[in-house]
């Protein structure tokens, strides 16, 4: 009896292994690797894709844009994830960009604040502490309170990267969530902070950057500059597995728009 059972078990195992080996069956695994800022968007896309095609497993590991791109070029993952545009060098090595979303970061001040328009340079000077009083920007004579997010936050890395103040910010206060930043900017007339565009509400005022007010449209047409693309990277002349192709097709399709919006980003097309 025992023997029969173990034989049956072995047979089942062998068959299931065979089934696993046959490549063009439905299902499979997609390994994605890269930008930590894309965690929210990837989470939303993965979840929606799983509902659509439960046989395909999408793995995401957040290691940073650079290592995601080199990962796809070296063939250690199927799709690389980058929250910046590809460099020329990367393109020459065969990296191909598929923009799945745009991420806008709004610079917010208290509604009482008269300053409503800043240049990128002024913003950089404020956040590095070179400009420390609102009167230097045409506002009232009051010290500037610079609010930001904690180290490791995607919004923080996006903002600092785009404005060019990476690890050079002199923050007055740091907060653990977007809501905290907005709440504290709303309650302090001296404050300036940044938050994902989708989270900005009427309790704070988003300033114009270089004369352009942030909105879904100005992010889409590129005139609002504090934004970055969320890119899925593949390698030229390397054919994706059926599963990876299906996931990529889904991510750039119109179907994905609502999930991308739900994750706080802007659908680009």
């Amino acid at each position, binding site marked *: 009896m025992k023997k029969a059972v173990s034989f049956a078990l072995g047979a089942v195992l062998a068959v299931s292994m065979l089934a696993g080996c046959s490549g063009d069956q439905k299902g499979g695994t997609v390994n994605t690797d890269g930008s930590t800022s894309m965690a929210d968007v990837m989470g939303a896309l993965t979840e929606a894709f799983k509902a659509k095609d439960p046989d395909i497993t999408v793995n995401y590991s*957040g290691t940073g844009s650079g290592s995601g791109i080199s990962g796809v070029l070296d063939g250690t993952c199927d799709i690389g994830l980058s929250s910046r545009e590809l460099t020329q060098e990367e393109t020459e090595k065969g990296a191909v960009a598929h923009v799945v979303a745009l991420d806008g970061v709004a610079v917010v001040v208290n509604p009482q604040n008269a300053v409503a328009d800043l240049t990128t340079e002024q913003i950089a000077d404020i956040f590095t502490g070179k400009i420390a009083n609102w009167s230097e920007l045409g506002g009232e004579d*009051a010290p500037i*309170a610079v609010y930001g997010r904690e*180290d490791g936050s*995607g919004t923080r890395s996006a903002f600092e990267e785009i404005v060019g103040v990476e690890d050079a910010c002199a923050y007055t206060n*740091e907060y*653990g969530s977007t809501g905290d930043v907005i709440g504290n900017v709303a309650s302090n007339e001296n*404050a300036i902070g940044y938050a994902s565009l989708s989270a900005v509400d009427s309790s704070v005022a988003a300033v114009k950057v270089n004369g352009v007010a942030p909105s879904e449209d100005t992010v889409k047409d590129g005139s609002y500059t504090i934004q970055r693309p969320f890119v899925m990277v593949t390698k030229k002349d390397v054919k994706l597995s059926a599963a990876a192709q299906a996931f990529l097709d889904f991510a750039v399709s119109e179907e994905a728009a609502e999930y991308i919006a739900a994750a706080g980003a802007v659908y680009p097309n």
Partner: protein
Amino acid sequence: MQLLFTLCGLAAVWFVLLITVYLILSGIPAIRKIGPADFLFGKTWAAGRDQYGILPLILTSVYGTAGAIVIGVPVGFFTAVFLAKAAPKKAAAILRPAVSLLAGIPSVVYGLVGMCVLVPALRSLLGLPAGDSLLAAILVLAVMILPSIISLSETALEAVPKEYEEASLALGATELETYFRVSAPAARSGIAAAVVLGIGRAVGEAMAIMMVAGNVANMPALTRSVRFLTTGISIELNYSQDGSLQRQALFSIGLVLFLFIMLINALLNLVLKREKED
């Protein structure tokens, strides 16, 4: 029945052991990678640049607690003397429930009031860009440790034998002289226990001070935004990646905090033991 009690008792021991072992196992790797000296005495905490020095956090926790004690202990002690010795019955009937109510307020509420009242007040009073600062945290902590200091000191003062005070009064000392020269010294180990308990509460507090301290890992200064050991963990835990050095370093902060608390507990036990021997 015996078995049930034993099991319940063992559960507590088991949890302490589990937490200790877990903290040590998860806290050691980062300290070894960063180097114990760089970790404990490094002046910069910037996960983005892979710099993990927690000296600013340690000093902030020490200064913050010391500040809370400097403000909270005199106020608490005088309140206790008033309650135990001098208060008319009616005043005590109002004050005592108020103190126990203070102990029952959740720390997030202390933080909320601090954030909405104290922080803006400090901002306009001192002309700061933002009121979130070490000073704000000290004030909040001072209020939070009051109940434990008051109730423990009061108990200690009430346990002083009446004969001591009667003897002092009979010798011509005034009431005030009696309370501070006779009663307080006689109750000193109980009062010391109250202070140590207050220190423990202040060191371990996270929620309330996260809302008023500003949370930038600066070297501590009264009017600047600071980060405590406790808030250092809670503010960065959400977005640190699993398995990254940042996440591991946060566990190491937890280990350091744990050692601080152990030290304070040992001190408390020592004080209480002395009291028994007295």
